[in-house]
């Protein structure tokens, strides 16, 4: 556990960051040095709240930092939170931004044929092997998950797999690669997450921050 006196809030770079900036403003946690060119390589930031410091990490690493207590709080996609499903993490606030969903997609030409004889085995490319495995297991399908970090949409067409499990926002990327969504696994949005030990040993500071984010969400 990070014993820094300040609360460390981990925030993912990329997609979620832009979406949460207005919320953070309303919650009174604003980056002191804006993410300008000058600070492009900086990863640790002071905020307008003297008790809170921000660290910028990749979207999948946010939950790891949080689970280990290197960060006390984090903003993370519910997709990543579900994938790791750490018992050491609470998710008290749905920030209701960066909304998309996690879906199964397959090549359009494959889906035109009705396959009433489903195989009990399937190869699936995904960034979410745990979620994908559990999802298919519900249907009696042993999913062999190939962990990819990007360009998933190409995988079925290149013969790497027959299904992908990925985030879908508008569906245009799927369409452009000749894929269709065949099932929705879960709705996804950004959450405020809290490390269990941090909440137990610094309950006042942590719950005050939780309430500020709750207030910021309901003000939208």
């Amino acid at each position: 556990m990070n014993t820094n006196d300040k609360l460390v809030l981990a925030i993912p770079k990329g997609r979620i960051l832009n979406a949460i900036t207005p919320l953070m403003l309303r919650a009174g946690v604003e980056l002191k040095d804006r993410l300008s060119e000058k600070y492009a390589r900086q990863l640790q930031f002071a905020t307008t709240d003297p008790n809170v410091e921000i660290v910028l990490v990749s979207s999948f690493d946010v939950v790891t930092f949080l689970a280990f207590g290197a960060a006390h709080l984090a903003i993370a996609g519910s997709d990543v939170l579900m994938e790791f499903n750490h018992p050491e993490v609470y998710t008290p606030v749905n920030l209701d931004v960066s909304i998309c969903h996690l879906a199964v997609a397959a090549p359009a030409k494959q889906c035109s044929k009705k396959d009433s004889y489903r195989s009990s085995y399937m190869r699936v490319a995904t960034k979410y092997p745990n979620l994908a495995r559990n999802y298919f297991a519900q249907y009696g399908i042993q999913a062999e998950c190939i962990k990819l970090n990007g360009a998933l949409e190409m995988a079925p067409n290149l013969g790497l797999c027959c299904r992908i499990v990925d985030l879908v926002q508008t569906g245009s990327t799927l369409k452009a690669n000749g894929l269709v969504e065949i099932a929705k696994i879960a709705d996804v949005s950004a959450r405020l997450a809290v490390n269990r030990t941090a909440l137990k040993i610094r309950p006042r500071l942590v719950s005050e921050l939780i309430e500020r984010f709750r207030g910021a969400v309901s003000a939208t």
Partner: protein
Amino acid sequence: MNHGPIINPEKITTLPIGFRDILASRADAEAKMINVMMSIAISHGYIRVKPTLIEFENTLLKGPGAATSEKVFRLIDPISQRVIGLRADMTTQAARIASTTMIDAPRPVRLCYAGGVLHTTTNQLNPERELVQVGAEMIGNSTADADAEVILLAIELLRTVGVKWISVDIMIPALVPLLLADMQLPAEIFSVIRQAINQKDVATLKKLANSKSSILVGLLKIFGPYAEAMQDLEELDLPDKARDFLVRPAEVIKLITNFEPNLSVTVDPAESRGFEYHTGIAFSLFTRGGKNEIGRGGRYQSDEDPKSTATGFTIYLERVLQILPEDKQKPAVYIPYGTPHEQSKALRMRGQITVAGLTPVVDNYAEAKRMGCRSILLNGQTVALS
């Protein structure tokens, strides 16, 4: 250019995942810590027991032991041909002793123990599969004073070995199941609701639950310093049955804070994960610097006999060792070959560590340095190495 392997597979001699040797001052610190903790528990009238490393699966997994099922390494006993398990937790073993060999001992029976346990499971956050468990159990007394006694004992043990700041988190694991039963939820959303509660996920709970869920939502927002938390709980519109569950925590908190006025005590009434077998109050012990709780415990039913209500605690020794500053290995004195035994014995009597030379060497100073000693015994005098 050579493209041969840079790693020689024959040279890989690691232990299985989650196992590690403990060396030098750390191994010593662990053993000393166990001794200190056990002697304190014994001084409070707890009888030390040393349960077996293995047991038949059915007794190991009885009652509260069922929660450890997935962690138990199993093998077949070549003699009885029955499945035996390597213990993953010693609490059940203490309970078994109390209800078998110590059945006639006057109640309450107070037991303490320390020993290794093995877990099949491992994860990134808790990779260790071999752990040392230190604990104490009080079987056969249902009072709040018994609950308070084990909490205070756990704190005393931790304080004595050097954990300065401790926070006790009090939980009421039976409260959420009671409220859920009252809500009569459809079976298919039950596990999702349970998960939402475990994660303090207010938004999901609001979406899923029915009109009675406002109590649960209120409950999820209550956690923290005991005075406010207990007050908030009183003000929550709880059913009468649930209200009864608040009496014991209030009594126990009063007892422990009377004794330890400066102790940090928090309450988290919605938390129950990992405490599914607990029947009364449960608690976790936290400290700054630990990534996780350093101990936990609470009230449970040690066997079917209603009189066998028990309360106790477990301390995770690895986690305690991790947060304490590591003892430096004491510097040793090199004893050149041929030095009279009385001289080195005198040093040891004064608490020094001696390392004896086994053959005559040309340069005793160089040999002392090679052996990692800080000084050398020459003509009855210890001389520091430069």
